[in-house]
């Protein structure tokens, strides 16, 4: 199994790499200031990759390729499919915004494709080094994208922070992985899993290694106490890039968490679960409390992300109970459902921030949303759906995400986990306050800015679809839940 190249396993990545190069070249010959050919070529490429991912997911098989360096399984392809969709939606929302801010260049599209390639590589990694490779490819592209608006102070500052802290996090992760390698003698996830399973490995080295790995992952997920970069980068980066950072990369971070911690180190679950509980509760407390104090919407959403990721991590903490992995599939698929629906909702919230921005005006203060229900009832309604979903109020999809995680906790039947569920619920009540406050601003306050809302037709249509999806998955969440469960079950079986 491990000595073949098996090119079939990496077709999506090859296609993505090829198209990223083609887009870079084609753009040189594009004279249209709107960069339409580049834009459409990029969208078409991602759509093709998405279709490929979906076809692989439907196939439902697990294949190892490149001498066991990569794996192609339903988990990777489902998340890959969602990552592609998220990126396409991001590009639709971003186009008018970057067009009016001197960012509409070929680099934007090429770098986006490269970051998507990095995500794709991470999703199918079966080896420590491949995980790292994908992570760096994605991160470097995103650093460059953050800095793309050269003459804009805050963006440059955000890019600098993002780069320094991101590099530090990568260092942590790499250091942790090297310790795991030193202890187990392998970089291959399955080999590491087996080596840990033998119980012959020096436990202390493993524990120190896993502390560093969890710290690195915590950085990437933006969990407390490794969250410092999140608010600054979210606020400072051009909103279009914020959306690129807040969307698909969260899926990738979730995927490598599963690959490293579950597929590689499930034997150490008792140890990393404890760490994740601390990260998770810390994130929910700090994220929710700090979000209340924000007046900048992008910063508020950044803290909200921290809190939401904390809630998602809860799902990962309940997989192994008393050394028993029976509830693992349930727990991990709940977390996966959470992260997928979170990305879906986040796309819409930042999409609206993008839409309300105009030439020379950023609609990123909460007060910029005042009276939106009068200026545009439709868009205000869509935003309200997103907010109620983030707050976890039915009938939106955010409710089922929270429900799935809570039932994973309660079904362990361990008192500690049930109390954890109670704590999570009470903290999400605090969260509800600031989400509902935005609804208040949109519906109850008088508009300060009475300029009519101009929205490109495609942006408006995709936003409406986005809102409809949040509502539709809230009324019929069964299908998406089943897909996540199927992907996780297959990933655990292999």
């Amino acid at each position, binding site marked *: 199994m491990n000595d073949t190249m098996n090119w079939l396993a990496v077709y999506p990545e090859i296609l993505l790499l090829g198209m990223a190069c083609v887009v870079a070249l084609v753009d040189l010959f594009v004279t249209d200031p709107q960069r339409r050919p580049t834009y459409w070529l990029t969208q078409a490429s991602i759509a093709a990759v998405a279709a490929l991912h979906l076809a692989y997911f439907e196939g439902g098989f697990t294949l190892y390729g490149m001498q066991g360096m990569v794996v192609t399984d339903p988990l990777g392809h489902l998340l890959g499919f969602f990552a592609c969709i998220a990126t396409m939606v991001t590009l639709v929302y971003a186009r008018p915004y970057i067009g009016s801010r001197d960012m509409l260049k070929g680099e934007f599209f090429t770098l986006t494709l490269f970051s998507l390639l990095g995500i794709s590589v991470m999703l199918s990694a079966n080896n420590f080094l491949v995980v790292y490779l994908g992570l760096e490819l994605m991160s470097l592209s995103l650093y460059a994208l953050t800095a793309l608006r050269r003459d804009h102070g805050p963006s440059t500052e955000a890019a600098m922070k993002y780069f320094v802290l991101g590099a530090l996090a990568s260092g942590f992760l790499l250091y942790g992985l090297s310790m795991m390698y030193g202890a187990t003698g392998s970089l291959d996830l399955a080999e590491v899993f087996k080596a840990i399973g033998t119980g012959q490995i020096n436990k202390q080295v493993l524990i120190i290694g896993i502390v560093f790995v969890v710290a690195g992952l915590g950085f990437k997920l933006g969990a407390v106490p490794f969250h410092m970069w999140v608010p600054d980068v979210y606020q400072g980066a051009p909103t279009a890039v914020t959306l690129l950072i807040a969307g698909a990369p969260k899926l990738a971070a979730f995927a490598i968490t599963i690959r490293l911690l579950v597929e590689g180190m499930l034997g150490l679950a008792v140890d990393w679960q404890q760490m994740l509980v601390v990260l998770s509760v810390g994130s929910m407390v700090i994220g929710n409390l700090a979000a209340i104090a924000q007046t900048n919407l992008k910063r508020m959403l950044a803290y909200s992300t921290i809190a939401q990721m904390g809630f998602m991590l809860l799902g990962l903490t309940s997989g192994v109970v008393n050394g028993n992995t029976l509830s693992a599939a349930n727990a991990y698929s709940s977390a996966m459902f959470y992260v997928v629906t979170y990305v879906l909702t986040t796309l819409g919230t930042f999409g609206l921030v993008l839409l309300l921005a105009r030439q020379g005006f950023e609609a990123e203060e909460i007060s910029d949303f005042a009276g939106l229900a009068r200026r545009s009832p439709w868009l205000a309604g869509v935003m309200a759906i997103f907010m109620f979903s983030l707050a976890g109020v039915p009938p939106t999809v955010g409710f089922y995400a929270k429900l799935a995680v809570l039932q994973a906790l309660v079904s362990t039947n361990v008192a500690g986990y049930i109390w954890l*569920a109670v704590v999570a619920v009470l903290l999400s009540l605090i969260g509800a306050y600031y989400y509902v406050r935005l609804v208040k601003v949109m519906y109850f306050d008088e508009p300060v800015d009475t300029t009519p809302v101009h929205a490109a037709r495609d942006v408006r249509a995709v936003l409406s679809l986005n809102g409809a999806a949040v509502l539709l998955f809230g009324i019929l969440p069964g299908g998406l839940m089943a897909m996540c469960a199927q992907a996780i079950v297959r990933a655990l079986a292999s």
Partner: protein
Amino acid sequence: MGLLSVAIWLPIVAGALLLAIGRDEHADTVRWTALGAAIAGFAVTVPLVTGFDTSTAAMQFVENLPWIERFNVRYHLGVDGLSVWFVLLTAFITIIVVISAWEVITERVNQYMGAFLILSGLMVGVFSALDGLLFYVFFEATLIPMYIIIGVWGGPRRVYAAFKFFLYTLAGSLLMLIALVYLYYKSGGSFQILDWHKLPLPMSAQALLFFAFFAAFAVKVPMWPVHTWLPDAHVEAPTGGSVVLAAIMLKLGAYGFLRFSMPIAPDASREYAWFIIALSLIAIVYIGLVALVQQDMKKLIAYSSVAHMGFVTLGFFVFNDLAVAGGIVQMISHGFVSGAMFLCIGVLYDRVHSREIAAYGGVVNTMPKFAALAVFFAMANCGLPGTGGFVGEWMVILGTVKTNFWIAALAATTLVFGAAYTLWMVKRVYFGAVANDDVKALADVNAREFTMLALLALAVLWMGVYPKPFTDVMNVSVTELLRHVAVSKLN
């Protein structure tokens, strides 16, 4: 699609359509569409009572389809004697609310009507859901339209009131969510309420469940001391919002006690009945006195609602046929009466733009027709025999006497306090000499206002004179519920 599904989804779909395509330029079309939808929504609920089999406690008009297969959640609807009248009440009050807003709401009419129609469908869903999660979804979803209604069309402190309403009720119901998930796990993967009724549970688990449900339902009822959101919400909400809050939303909580707390945790319910009874008595006596000193008419009626709902919870937790049935009758009649009281205040407010009792006096001189109706509702509110308000209170007191005379005696003070605060308000607002120029300039109710008040007056009178159709429907279900609660589930 069964009748219940139509009763739920018809108003929701109509409301969503109004939200999507209604415009203020076509406000009249929006109003007529809303009225049509409300009447149609009511019409489909009528066969629920006419076709109701009063000889069985089993669920009727059942619909049962898979919904979320991964968690074995089902789209399971049905009504029994405990819930069927609330479905009708909800649909009926929705018609009244639509009529009451006719000339009053002139801005964002489609959003106002749409919110109320959606709210109506959701509340019917709460009363007919037989799946725990489905119940929760409807129960929680009602917060969204009510939050918007209070916040957009409310009074000066509407933002504060809307937030208080939203966060208070959300806090309570989130604890219930944990309880539901726990029951799901304990019952081996079922969200069916009827399965949970049969589930044996140890006392410690029952106690925790009981208090988790208590958190959700006590806030909603609302019981003392978690009632403080209600006066704020009532005072700030527009008339329609107050009517729906008082007439139906409070009943969601009391209904929850009947459907969840008592049958799922019967041992804990008996164990902690003293606690509920104590809180109910405080609500009846203390809140009755609080109502007495209110300056604002809406606040007065809000506190009177808390006191009346105290009667309902008292009736439930003395575990006696008559008292439980009395509690349910009281809920229905309070739905009509308190709704009507808020409409009366709305009628005055639309003309004078004040809710202060002191701003009025001698209204009967300028609005004789209106005053007659208003005084009638006031009488019903203090439980005059012959009105709906009397039947429920009488049944509860009678049932309670069988359990404990002193509790009944304390509860019966409501007849004194209720009469005191209501009649004193009536005296100051309606009777006496014309107090000021505002009152002198008042025009009597128009045909629209008269129609909605008269409809309610007929309902109140009917319940007072001939309550048999109401009690007949619930008798078997109440008996069955009490038989169930009497059996221990400890082993």
